[in-house]
């Protein structure tokens, strides 16, 4: 038991360091900063480069890494994050994701994608307690964390700039009125966070022993959970959350195995959020609307599309493309259509109900598995399996997500991310082998497995999806759901059962995610859990934001741009992701409300 506890303390230390930076930026800017994840990977690679390649001593390398990360952080905040964060936290979040893509890939080009052995700058297993061994390196890390935490707390408590940071975190408007240069304060916070990210990255690599440019993502995700657990914006919370998560995970893995790690991590998070909706030490958010979208809805109005656009789109998408295009375009088109179906369905949750759920890979996976298992093990045909898969996804996801609707603010996004991740992790435990030979669609014994047939089937489903979305929006139900998204206190006061309608909206979205998953499964004919990743969830969210968060047809445009862009950029394979990231930043920068949304 003692050794598990020590293992937990050591991993908790790393999470805590990572979580502090995330919490700091969130506190002063109200932005979830995905770029922080990249600083973990970058810090590790820079330290590796300085020590293993240039032969610098660790004592010189470490400050160098911190300075470089701090500088980069300033640059990113100046150019990308702050201009957006001022008026649209959601767009800023998306842009930090784009920045993380650019950073990871630039680092991959600079250092190559190889995993590298991280030099052992200090002994790692020269001491022991019971059967557990640890090293001077672990003690130094613990000590550095302690010193950094004390220094930051002192700075925040007594330093002039620190006090300004706290004031800004508490109320940006008021801080501004009191003469605090909020912009400067935000820069300082971002710089500190980036430097801490680099430091944490070096420590992660020291602890783990190997690093590669993208290795920050996984620890980053856990550090993010730790920050949420402690209460976003609370630094002490981040530290407590980090250690609590590290220790609980260690014991969880001890009893249930490493395969259950993600389930353990997110189960802890969800339970804590239900009991304490603001995290362990955070404040329960005062504004009860989802800040990600609630403030977002008023920011723009959809472009008025003339009526001829619809028949024209129908003719182009349903007739011209299938007749003219080659198989490659049709196959790409099929991917676009499937993601458009998923994203269009998701606009009910994201746009109307105002909840930016982050774990859509969960219902997509349920739909894919339900459809695969139904068609393989029962006489159910493809045509029946597709809607059934949607239904199964809607029912299971709603039941699993039902506890999270009481959670408020950003926390609900993170809780839904947890639900999605847990769904995929449970599927991995339940059906560990991949599923092969999922039947392709057929009609009256004729297989419909050509790229054109897939395209047409999926096009028809998309048209149906958009029709359903249109009906929902125009119905009384749709108006009620929209009222929940626009102002849930007002809705509640008018007697609307806010929680239930959020759940209903989520069920509708999960239905279409399930349908999309089913279509994917029958096209791939093979599925396994590695297909349904967090990146898939992020792609859905990105598509929706890109098109306009409450526009189902905007999702189609978003899917064309985001999936089409990846294909269009094939001419520059090495720079593909970097260019993709830049395109994403530019689009978000100039159309922060979505491509089809006019800024007001």
């Amino acid at each position, binding site marked *: 038991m003692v050794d598990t506890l020590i293992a937990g303390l050591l991993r908790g230390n790393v999470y805590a360091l990572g979580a502090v930076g995330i919490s700091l930026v969130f506190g002063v800017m109200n932005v979830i900063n995905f770029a922080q994840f990249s600083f973990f990977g970058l810090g590790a690679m820079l330290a590796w480069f300085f020590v293993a390649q240039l032969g610098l001593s660790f004592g010189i390398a470490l400050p160098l890494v911190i300075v470089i990360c701090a500088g980069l952080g300033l640059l990113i905040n100046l150019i990308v994050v702050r201009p957006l964060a001022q008026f649209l936290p959601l767009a800023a979040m998306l842009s930090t994701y784009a920045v993380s893509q650019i950073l990871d890939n630039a680092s991959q080009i600079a250092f190559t994608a190889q995993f590298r052995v991280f030099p052992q700058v200090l002994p790692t*297993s020269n001491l022991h307690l019971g*059967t557990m061994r*640890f090293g001077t390196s672990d003690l130094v890390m613990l000590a550095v964390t302690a010193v950094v935490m004390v220094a930051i707390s002192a700075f925040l408590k007594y330093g002039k700039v620190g006090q300004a940071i706290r004031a800004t975190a508490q109320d940006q408007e008021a801080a501004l009125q009191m003469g605090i240069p909020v912009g400067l304060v935000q820069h300082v916070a971002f710089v500190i966070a980036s430097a801490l990210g680099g430091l944490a990255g070096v420590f992660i690599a020291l602890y783990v022993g190997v690093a590669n440019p*993208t290795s920050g993502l996984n620890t980053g995700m856990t550090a993010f959970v730790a920050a949420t657990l402690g209460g976003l914006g609370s630094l002490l919370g981040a530290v407590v959350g980090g250690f609590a998560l590290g220790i609980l*995970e260690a014991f969880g893995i001890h009893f249930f195995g490493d395969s259950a790690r993600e389930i353990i991590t997110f189960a802890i998070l969800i339970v804590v959020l239900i009991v304490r909706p603001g995290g362990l030490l955070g404040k329960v958010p005062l504004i009860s609307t989802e800040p990600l979208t609630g403030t977002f809805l008023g920011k723009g109005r959809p472009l008025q599309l003339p009526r001829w656009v619809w028949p024209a789109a129908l003719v182009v998408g349903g007739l011209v493309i299938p007749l003219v295009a080659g198989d490659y375009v049709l196959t790409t088109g099929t991917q676009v259509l499937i993601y458009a179906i998923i994203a269009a369905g998701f606009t009910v949750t994201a746009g109307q109900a105002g909840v930016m759920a982050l774990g859509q890979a969960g219902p997509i996976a349920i739909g894919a598995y339900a459809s695969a298992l139904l068609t393989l093990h029962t006489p159910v045909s493809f045509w029946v399996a597709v809607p059934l898969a949607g239904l199964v996804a809607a029912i299971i996801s709603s039941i699993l997500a039902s506890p999270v609707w009481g959670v408020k603010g950003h926390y609900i996004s993170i809780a839904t991310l947890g639900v999605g991740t847990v769904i995929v992790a449970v599927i991995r435990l339940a059906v560990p082998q991949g599923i092969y030979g999922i039947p392709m669609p057929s009609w009256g014994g004729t297989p419909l497995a050509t790229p054109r047939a897939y395209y047409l089937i999926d096009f028809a489903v998309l048209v149906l999806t958009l029709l359903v979305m249109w009906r929902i929006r125009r119905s009384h139900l749709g108006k009620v759901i929209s009222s929940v998204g626009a102002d849930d206190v007002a809705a509640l006061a008018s007697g609307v059962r806010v929680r239930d309608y959020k759940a209903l909206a989520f069920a509708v979205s999960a239905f279409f995610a399930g349908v999309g998953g089913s279509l994917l499964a029958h096209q791939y*004919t093979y599925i396994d859990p590695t297909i349904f990743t967090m990146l898939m969830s992020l792609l859905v969210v990105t598509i929706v934001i890109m098109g306009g968060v409450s526009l189902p047809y905007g999702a189609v445009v978003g899917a064309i741009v985001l999936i089409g862009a990846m294909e269009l950029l094939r001419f520059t394979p090495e720079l593909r992701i970097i260019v993709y990231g830049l395109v994403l930043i530019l689009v978000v920068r100039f159309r922060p409300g979505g491509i089809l949304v006019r800024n007001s």
Partner: protein
Amino acid sequence: MTFPTTIGRRVAALVLTAATLATAACSSSASAGGGSGTAPVYFGVSSATTGQYAQYGQQFKQAFDLAVEQVNAEGGINGRPVALKYEDSQSDPKQSVTVAQKFVSDKDVILAFGDYSSAASIPASPIYTSGKLVQYGFNNSNPAFTEKGSEYQWSTAITTTANYRWTADYIKSQGVTSVGVSYLNTADWGIPAFQAFKAEAEKVGLTITDAEGVLDTSDDYRPSLTKAVAGKPEAFVHIGYGPDAAKLVTQLRAIGYQGTFYGGQDEKSFDGTPDAAGSIIAAQFVETSTDPAVKAFVDAFKQKYPAEQHVTLFEATAYDALHVAVAAAKQGGTTREGILKGFREVKDVPSVVYGAVSFDPATRRVQDPKLTPTILKDGKWVEYKKA
């Protein structure tokens, strides 16, 4: 807002949409033909040049480029040079299927290599099959890639089943009676591999004291490891890749376990990990082998890429794969049907991994792949003979 601006934006949105589709359409209308003469013979490569598996994509590319250079220096395929068309799939099924379709539509491509992971290869297989294009998954050790595939799926990778059956037998033959096991809990590789190991261990009487499924995305294995070695096994087996094995062996030693480590991979991060020294694995390719063909390959590789200190199985398999594909095209002809015929007929193609490659037409895998026990010494894998 003024009327013209609205129109402008609306038009911009539509133009963007149209442009996306149109450009995609153009790039697909590949030129057909290029049948004979001195026009290059094209093979497609679907692999990860970016993203989390980019490490392997880069290793494959180095070896492919070297092999193409050599083949062309020796006159190519009956006077026609060989050329590769690379497409980045990020080893993501969403992209590997479009890449497959791109290759199928491109009449110049007579064979496609890849993808890296089975989760990306298998979803692309139906497209290759319906396009009658050979999909040569030289890295796909998941038996299902060929078993569940069609006559168009071929592989020179040893199956996880063969590999881990051998491993269980070998460990038992070393006089070991009990092992602790960790394996990657992944559907496309780790789980089938572990199941093969477990079945064989039961058969030969090798006790598994505890088996822990782990994820390669984890960084901290200590809680799993303390449990896996609690039953005091004589040796430890890790069924996984190089980077995770590197983290794992370091932590295994850190918790004080001293038994032999049967695991790891010939891969930079593992080879360079101090605690990995003394690890034993079944190798298909040994860089330090005295075999002249291997020596020639290793020397040529290091000459072309002076920065690379090691040549691993990943480079070797890609290098071999190109030579096998060339041999098949020489045998059956430089068309899609021809190369398929070639795969069915080729015998004893020289190989740096297996010595010589012949396919079993029923399984579309290498006949009798040989494995050699190797031990990691001073950062290099050498053939292991027990003193």
